[in-house]
């Protein structure tokens, strides 16, 4: 039984087109951010969501917690369907978000202690000895109790992340959604945060949905990965299998594009050309057809569906070949 189950989720945002928009049909006045998103996160699992900017990752994270209204689809969390704002308010007590910009997500006028106590107070779960609880929370993420008196600007990038982790864990969530948990951190500090998250996961039995564009990082922390392109999930599968043999052409070029820290493995040719199209000009048929090296007439007319290819692997491509899987 999965902790989080998402079926056919879609989000579109209203477009203001000015006067010319008034003459267009209502449906044309919305910008589709993503649609047809289905995936599940099992209890105790880490799912990595990768994709480039503009693919819809962050909007998806917000929609999962009811922070962005959805136009279609179902979100089931902890065995209950979540549809109304009341449902999501209840869900947010047992799931938490780590926001992308750790420093910016902490109010500059509040001390770390006040920031950590805030979620407890809002959800009516403040214990009598709040200061001791805050000290415990700081201790959990490897900070000393005297950090409670500091202001966010006095923290380093890594310390601000730790406060973000502590804040996310304040209400003992079952699911933590981490949006770019290590963006802007140096590699030596990035490891510290990821090790901390991994350690807390086993100690507290958490599930993670980690969103990132950093493939090297996501590869080491996720059990499964989902690759997103222009508002569609194009491939989902166990991390090891996807990295060893990506089946979707976009996943293939994404993995091939990552610069490796080894001058003996320089890449002579270009994995992918062009750039991610604007959401306003979503390609017809397959979303990737405008950049795909294997695109054919079918790809330009018909959108492929997410289909099962091999054990636990789903790929949204007309021509992805399951025979490739059997080679190993």
């Amino acid at each position, binding site marked *: 039984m999965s902790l989080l189950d998402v079926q056919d989720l879609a989000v579109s945002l209203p477009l203001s087109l000015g006067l010319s928009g008034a003459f267009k049909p209502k449906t044309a006045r919305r910008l589709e951010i993503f649609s047809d998103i289905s995936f599940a996160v099992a209890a105790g699992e880490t799912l990595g969501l990768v994709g*480039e*900017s503009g693919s819809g990752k962050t909007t998806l994270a917000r929609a999962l917690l009811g922070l962005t209204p959805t136009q279609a689809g179902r979100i089931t969390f902890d065995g209950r369907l979540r549809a109304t704002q009341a449902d999501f308010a209840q869900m947010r007590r047992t799931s938490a978000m780590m926001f992308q910009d750790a420093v910016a997500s902490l109010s500059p006028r509040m001390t770390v202690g006040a920031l950590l106590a805030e979620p407890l107070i809002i959800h009516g779960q403040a214990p009598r000895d709040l200061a001791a609880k805050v000290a415990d929370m700081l201790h959990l993420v490897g900070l000393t109790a005297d950090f409670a008196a500091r202001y966010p600007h006095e923290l*380093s*990038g890594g310390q601000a992340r730790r406060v973000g982790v502590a804040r996310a864990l304040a209400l003992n969530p079952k699911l933590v959604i981490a949006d770019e948990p290590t963006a802007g951190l*140096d*590699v*030596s*500090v*990035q*490891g*510290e945060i*990821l*090790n901390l998250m*991994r350690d807390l996961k086993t100690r507290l039995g958490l599930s993670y949905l980690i969103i990132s*564009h950093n*493939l*090297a*990082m996501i*590869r*080491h922390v996720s059990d499964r990965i989902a690759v997103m392109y222009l508002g569609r999930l194009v491939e989902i599968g166990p*991390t*090891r299998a996807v990295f060893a043999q990506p089946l979707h052409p976009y996943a293939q*070029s*994404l993995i091939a*594009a*990552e*610069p*490796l*820290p*080894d*001058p*003996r*493995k*320089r*890449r002579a040719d*270009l*994995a*992918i*050309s062009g*750039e*991610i199209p604007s959401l306003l000009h979503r390609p017809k048929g397959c979303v990737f057809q405008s950049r795909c090296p294997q695109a054919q007439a079918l790809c330009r007319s018909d959108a492929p569906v997410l289909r099962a290819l091999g054990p636990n692997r789903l790929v949204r491509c007309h021509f992805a070949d399951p025979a490739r899987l059997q080679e190993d």
Partner: protein
Amino acid sequence: MKPPLLEITDLSVAYQTDTGPVMALRGANLVARAGEVIGIVGESGCGKSTLAAAVMNLLPATAKVTGGAVRFLGQDILTLAPQAQRALRGTAMAMIFQDPMTAFNPVLTIGDHLVDFQHQSRAPYRAKLARARDQLALVGLSDPDVILRRYPHQLSGGMRQRVAIAAALLMNPQVLVADEPTTALDVTTEAQILHLLRNLRQTYQGTIVVISHHLGVVAELCDRVYVMYAGQVVEQAMVDDLFHAARHPYTRALLACDPASFPNLTPVLPTIPGRLPDLRDPPKGCSFAPRCALRSARCTVAPPWAQVSPSHGVLCHEVGA
């Protein structure tokens, strides 16, 4: 022998702050010859951007050069009159910035920018515009005439960075400094810009200095690499030696930390314990000693620069000797 294109000797820079001067650079040395692509790597706060700003003579007003020299073709550019410095920038030296959005003026078209950047040339307007067009084609923009009429906000991040590269190369500079040229870009766009920079160097005669915290970018592009830590160059080596035979404990730790460097999945990622020293009061001995696994009693004394081979130098007591 001809002097190298760019030579930095014992450069020290301090930033004046309310709590005293911060020694951002402490005796940095660097040599760049024509045709070379030099990499400068290090984590935030190591002084790599200060070094780049010093090369371009674009240090902010709070920064003070406390010693050393930056020589361009043998001439110390830090002592030049401001007018002579300006004459060098853009023509002899150019820079590509990290954020391709803020590098352009939002109310001018790309064509306006690229013509304006040639203000030191006496060529007629149409010749400048034609040159701008050729440069845009050179950096792989498929429709240069259209791009010339576009405003910066109408271009994607990758296109803007291509335009920034075209702009930097307009006056055919001998020194090109690229400060985190791909950090603001997506993975597939980054790959395209790296590909472009690597193709450009086949025709470019000068030297390129690439500053990055991303080890993969340095491995892809550079011939020779300087590793910086706490305001000092701690290791200098050919790119292959640096990635396969690094000597300095910091370099080795940094390489070990990069999640892209290990092929197998590990449950625990390596880190570098401890923190950067406070550069308001830099340590007397080796800056890395408090975090170093190899430290010994002599690390309380400043380490000497030691050549382990003619092309490989390291600032360390333990591995240099």
